[in-house]
Each structure stands twice: as C-alpha cells, then as structure tokens.
C-alpha cells in the first residue's frame, strides 16, 4: 500500500518533468523521420522504418530511464524532502521500491506512446498490424526496467551526473559483453580464461533483450530464449534493487 502510494506520487512527479517530453518529442521525430529516410533506399522501405523505429524506442527509452532514474533519489536528498518522507512510518526499501515502480509506470506509458506512433507508421506502409514488433518492444521495456534499477542504484550514492555516466557505461558494457564471450571461445584453458569467464558471468548482457534484428527479418526465435531472457531481466533488476536497498539503508541523512 505504502509502495503503491509512493509509486503513484513518483509517477505524478515524473510526468511533470520537462525532460521526459523533450525525449518523447525527439523519439517521435526520429520515428517519423524514418519515413523520409526510407524514401532514400533502393529496396525494402519498411525494413528501414522498422530499424529506425525500434532503435529510437530502445535508445530514447534507455535515455529516459538513465536521465530520470539517476535523479530520482538524489532529488529527494538534495531538496531535503527525504526527511519528511523517512520521518513517516515507512521503510527505506518501501521508499526505494515505490520510486522504482513509479518510474517504471512512467516509462511504460512513454514507451506505449512511442510504440503507438511507430506501429501506426508501420501499419500505414504494410496495411497490417505487425504483432512481431511487440516482442521486440516488450524486451526493450525489460531492458529499460533493468536500466532504471541501475540508475537507481547509482543514484543512491552519487550525484546525477556521475550516476548518468556510470549508468551509460553499464549500458555500453552490457551491449559489448558478447565480445567477451567471443574472446573466451578463442582463449586457451587456464587462469586467464577462468577469470574472464567469471567476469563475463557478472557483467550484464543486454543483448539478451535485443530481438530487433530477428523481428525485422521475421526470423524464428527459440521459445526458451523468451522465458530465460525475461527471467534474466527480472533477476538482474532484483539483484540491483537489492544492492540499492543495501546502500540506501546504510546512508546517513544529516
């Protein structure tokens, strides 16, 4: 109940943030721009629209999660409103989870609007609803949820600028980790390989949520990967939220 109240208030606060609308505007502009870009191609125009649209959704979704998530806890501390909140009979984990779910709700609505524009544009070209695109959009949302947890973790102990840099690095590392997997395959057995394998197990693999290419090319996706990718996203987010709660509980507010 308390988490829901905080989440609802976070949502009300987040939708008043101008940066959200600025990003939404740019995302919509990019999606619509894909139509113009498609005119330049020789061949399949819909492929260009789908690629640009899904990339816009993913990129602007990630930016929204990072830019808003990093300021979430910090703003409360900076404006000293945290004292009022924590003086109430609520646990710190309830406060954090409320903030998290409030932002997730905001991001869900933003992704919904962006997806609506995108799917309408695709529909105007193909005259059919491309349900497969919803798979890619769903996994973009899972990735955004994970990034929000990352941003929140950093927001608990750092300034928004540093948190944004850390979260962005997490995002980039997450999309590069498959390179490490390739390196492991080429390494000779030994300590170096074991250490690299351990490192690979810990660093995030955000490519698990990247189904953009498969969806655009109408490729079959193994059913197990759907489930395991969602579970991976949920457990990684829970792990990050757990870390965030640990950090937040240890913090002193003077």
């Amino acid at each position: 109940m308390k988490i829901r109240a905080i989440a609802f208030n976070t949502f009300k606060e987040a939708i008043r943030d101008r940066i959200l609308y600025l990003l939404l505007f740019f995302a919509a502009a990019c999606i619509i721009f894909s139509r113009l870009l498609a005119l330049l191609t020789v061949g399949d125009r819909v492929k260009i629209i789908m690629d640009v649209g899904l990339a816009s959704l993913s990129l602007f979704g990630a930016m929204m999660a990072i830019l808003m998530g990093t300021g979430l806890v910090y703003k409360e501390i900076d404006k000293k409103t945290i004292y009022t909140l924590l003086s109430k009979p609520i646990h710190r984990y309830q406060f954090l989870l409320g903030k998290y779910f409030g932002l997730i709700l905001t991001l869900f609505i933003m992704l919904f609007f962006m997806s609506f524009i995108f799917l309408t544009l695709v529909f105007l070209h193909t005259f059919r609803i491309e349900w497969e695109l919803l798979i890619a959009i769903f996994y973009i949302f899972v990735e955004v949820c994970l990034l929000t947890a990352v941003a929140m973790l950093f927001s608990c102990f750092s300034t928004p600028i540093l948190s944004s840099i850390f979260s962005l690095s997490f995002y980039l590392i997450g999309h590069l980790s498959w390179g490490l997997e390739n390196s492991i395959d080429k390494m000779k057995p030994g300590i170096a390989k074991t250490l690299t394998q351990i490192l690979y197990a810990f660093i995030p693999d955000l490519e698990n949520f990247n189904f953009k290419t498969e969806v655009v090319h109408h490729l079959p996706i193994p059913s197990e990967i759907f489930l395991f990718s969602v579970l991976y996203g949920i457990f990684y987010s829970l792990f990050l939220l757990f870390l965030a709660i640990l950090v937040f509980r240890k913090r002193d507010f003077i």
Partner: protein
Amino acid sequence: MGLKVKIDKISRKKIPGSSIIYIPSGKYLKFATFGYSSLLADLIYLWSIQYYSDYSVVDRFKYLDHIFSVIAELDHRYLDPYQIGALIALYEARDLDLALKILDRGLEKNPNQWIFPLEAGHYAQMAKKDYKLAQKYYKKAMEIKGAPPITKRLYANASFKLTDYKTAFETWQEIYKTTEEERIKKIASNHLFQVKAAIDIKTIFEAIEKFREIYDRNPVDLSQLVKAGLLDSLPKDLDGQDYHYDSKTGEVKTQTIPWKR
C-alpha cells in the same frame, strides 16, 4: 542570418569521396554499434546509394567490395545491399567478378535465398556469355526451396547453350511433365523440339561428314546416308516431320521454326 548566407556562398575545397576512409572493417564496427548493428547497416547502405550516385568520385568503385562487406557484416540478413551492390559492380563498375563475389557472399550468409545464385547465373549468362558458370549457379538456385519455376527453365536453356543436350532435354522434359500452365507447356514443348532437332542435326552432320570422306561429295538426299550404312534410320523431328536437306550446301534444318509450331 546574413553571416550564414555569406558563409554558405564561400566555396570550399572538398575531396570527393573522402568520407570513405572513416568506415572501418565491419567486424570491428559491429562492436561499436552497441546493439544497433542493423540500424547502422541501413545507414551505411543509404549512404552508399548516395555515394555511388556521385559521379564526381572517379575511383568510387575501389571501395565497393569493402562497403558492401561492411553492411553484410553488420546485418547479414539484409538482402537488398547484396543485390544492389552486385548491380552497381556489374553495370557501373563493369566488374562481373566483383558482382559475383558480392552475390556469393549473400548466398554464403543466407543459404536459403535462391535470389543470389539466380542473379549470379543471369549475370554470368548475360554479361560474360559464360553458360558453364550460369548453369552452375542456376543449379544451385534450383536446389534451394522456394526457387521460382523460371530457374529450371534458365538452367535448361544454359545447358542447351553449352551443348549439354542430354541435360537440356531431360530438364525440359521434366518441366513439360510437371507444369500445369499451358503457356509453360508450350514453351517446354518448343524447347524439346529445338533440343531434339539439335541432337538429330548433329548426328546427321556427322554422317554427312563421313559420307563426304568416302564419296568426296555431298549425298543427293538423306536416304543415301542410310543406304551407305552411316545411319540406322533417318531421324524425324518432334512433330514427326523429316528434316530439310540442301544437297548443294549440305545444310540440314527443321521444316518449321520451333517458335512457330
């Protein structure tokens, strides 16, 4: 505003096609895309279309293979760039080998796409008149599921041009038997007529050659070949008609043109 207009009017030296140097190998570029490799492939492809439309870049074909290999590396399932790359290589760069290389790459990365060997076969046939190569590509295309019926017809035609009459006859026969379209049946029938005539005329010619060696003249009519024991019997065309023979020139041909049957 005025300053901007002023600056725009100043002409600056540009090196045509200099942007090409910024494209690294696709293998490494993929690392830098952070999950947006498909989008980057689109953008490079769009850029390449503009680049190859710019005739001021004299040596633009030097990097053709590189550019299209980068796109293939970034999104190997993107089919348009292979086709357009090959088209540019053949018709603009006049480099058939490069066109075939790009199409081969497309097939290697997308083994279920019949369009690549079909186009490669067409290019080999049209640009180089290399029917052996064309036959090889058409055969590859035929073996891929979903290949259109025309592939088999092109294969049969290339076999005929190669004077591989046995393969040509068998393939046209198969087309004749399996097609349900009357138009295709007619085409196949005409080709069967043509292939049979080619086989028969070749046999008759060989017999005439031998007749000439023995008698030092052309036979008066074709029945002399049978009488001389050079042929078991006189072959007839697919419609059961005799072949037309000119004793003065030694020329043998069908009485009807295959396409006017």
